């Protein structure tokens, strides 16, 4: 599923920071997410040595069922599905990191400017975010990619277009509220330079929520890119890409292994980032936490 962003307030828990990041890593869910994500990243790095076959090599065995020779079977051109799934990580994971970094840079910059200057600058940036939020994400991403022409590069561009407003809003809100908060003023009154106030007092408080948002968006980016490729607007054949592999799987419906395994890859990668992001949010906002004991009232 290509994810519609959850409501920001809820996604990142815009509340008083009451826990430490440290506690996140002791939760089983965080550990599971960590392990899964690390496994996928290792696969992406070492895939030339791990993958049993060349992902593009066509053997004579078309539509082979999963067997010892081809653990995930082969596809309509006789290519090894396992190798293609493993190679797919080289596309999806780096792109997800790049996408989120780009959305963070664009959104953070615009949001920071909007929050700092206020006035009409703020108005323009915020109305632009409203416009993006007025579309369900994949609808806008689909329209943008289709208008620019279907290619992986344009799909990536489209995802940045739909992702940046979240960061703009979070950073803007934080910059605005933190600039007026008592403890920042107190630091300034104690003689801290603006730079010190920004780095020591403001930044750590911005970093938490943004980190949660970015972690969850890594999963969303994988989903959205896979969705666009499923629509034929992202990666083009014969590139091994998870979304387009599932699409091929739907065309050969009875050869269940062709679509099922790439789908598992998407699910496990997205799940890893969602586990991580969710644990992080818990650590930052124990009130709705799934792990911490009942809060004293």
């Amino acid at each position, binding site marked *: 599923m290509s994810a*519609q962003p959850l409501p920001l307030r*809820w996604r990142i828990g815009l509340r008083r920071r009451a826990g430490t990041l440290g506690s996140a890593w002791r939760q089983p869910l965080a550990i599971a997410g960590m392990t899964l994500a690390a496994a996928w990243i290792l696969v992406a790095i070492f895939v030339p040595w791990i993958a049993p076959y060349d992902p593009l090599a066509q053997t004579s065995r078309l539509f082979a069922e999963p067997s010892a020779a081809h653990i995930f079977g082969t596809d309509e051109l006789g290519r090894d599905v396992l190798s293609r799934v493993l190679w797919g990580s080289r596309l999806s994971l780096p792109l997800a990191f790049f996408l989120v970094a780009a959305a963070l840079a664009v959104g953070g910059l615009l949001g920071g400017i909007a929050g700092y200057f206020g006035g009409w600058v703020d108005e323009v940036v915020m109305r632009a975010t409203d416009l993006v939020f007025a579309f369900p994400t994949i*609808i806008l991403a689909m*329209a943008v990619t289709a208008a620019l022409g279907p290619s992986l590069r344009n799909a990536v561009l489209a995802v940045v277009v739909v992702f940046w407003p979240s960061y703009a809003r979070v950073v803007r809100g934080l910059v605005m509220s933190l600039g007026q908060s008592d403890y920042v003023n107190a630091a300034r009154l104690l003689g801290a330079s603006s730079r010190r106030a920004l780095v020591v007092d403001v930044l750590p408080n911005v970093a938490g929520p943004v980190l949660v948002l970015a972690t969850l968006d890594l999963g969303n980016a994988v989903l959205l890119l896979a969705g666009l490729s499923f629509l034929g607007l992202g990666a083009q054949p014969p590139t091994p890409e998870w979304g387009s592999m599932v699409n091929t799987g739907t065309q050969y419906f009875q050869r269940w292994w062709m679509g099922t395994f790439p*789908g598992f890859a998407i699910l496990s990668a*997205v799940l890893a980032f969602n586990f991580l992001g969710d644990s992080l949010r818990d650590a930052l906002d124990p009130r709705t936490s799934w792990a911490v004991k009942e809060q004293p009232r």
Partner: protein
Amino acid sequence: MTSAASAANQQLAAGWRPRLPSRLFLRFLGRRLAALVLLGLGITFVAFVLTELVPGDPAAANLGQRAIGDPEAVRAFREHYGLDKPLPVQYAVYLQHLAAGDLGESEQSHRPVRTDLAEYVPATAELAVTSILIAFALGIALGVLAAVRRNRLTDQVLRVLSLGGISMPTFWLALVALYVFFFQLGWVPGSGRLDPGVLPAPHVTGLYTVDALIAGQIDVLGNALQHLILPACVLAAYNVGLLTRFVRSAVLEVINNDYVMAARAKGLPERTVILRHVLRAALPPIITVGGLAFANVMTGTVLVESIFSWPGIGQYAFHSATTLDLPAIMGVSLFVAVVYIAVNFAVDVLYGVVDPRIRVA
């Protein structure tokens, strides 16, 4: 939560009575309506800019291969859409066409996009509404369960399941569900809205289930429901995950309030406390997820309808995307965005009705 807010929650829990719209409410309504109109204009602007972005000649992109060799057709097209005029004028012309319901002509069907949409919307509407109902019923039940069993095993299992729901690629879930429940088990019919031999009831709403009910054709109703259930459940998966999590935190926000303790102290059964006191107070924030749930279902239909051969706008969008039928893609996007902001508007107003505090903000 502040004590003022929990006091308001107590009032909410005590029971809300409808009253005549106050001046404050009318002002709230007016403000939201103005925002709706502005946003609608903004959406058309985005769609216009995107059509302008098309690399090369928009006439070529919109007319397709068949007509681009014909200079007369190109000239007529440019004149019709005002492409020979400056951009602001083009936008005005574009708006004028939109106001007249002209979304251009699909390259695939060679029909006006509006005609296509009108044909496909009821199928999607039926699927989307069913799916959202399923999602809310399941999501609220599971969310309350998770909140009541907070930090116990049930809660932890539900946490993993709900995260699984929002991590699952819907198009993959559709494929797997179809393979298992249709191909392997044969529990549901494979594709389409009705079995090949079954005729839909006379057209009233375009929703086959409702039309069958109106006509009193129970067998058609049953057949339509059989076809509806699997795609609706697949589309609901993401929203169930989302709602479970959201309902859980909404319930936890209120479950420790003093009035809940008071209700327990006076000896009400736990079921009554949860349903009448806790859930009632937790409902307003849950309503706000409605808009989001709609967006998720629309996202899902684009990816899933073609797998189920469901003749709705999702399948239309999918085919338009795979064949790069630009006017159709833009038409669907514009339509979905307009419905989406209308849904969000309705959710806003509903929230204002249910929770009077919102109107002041």
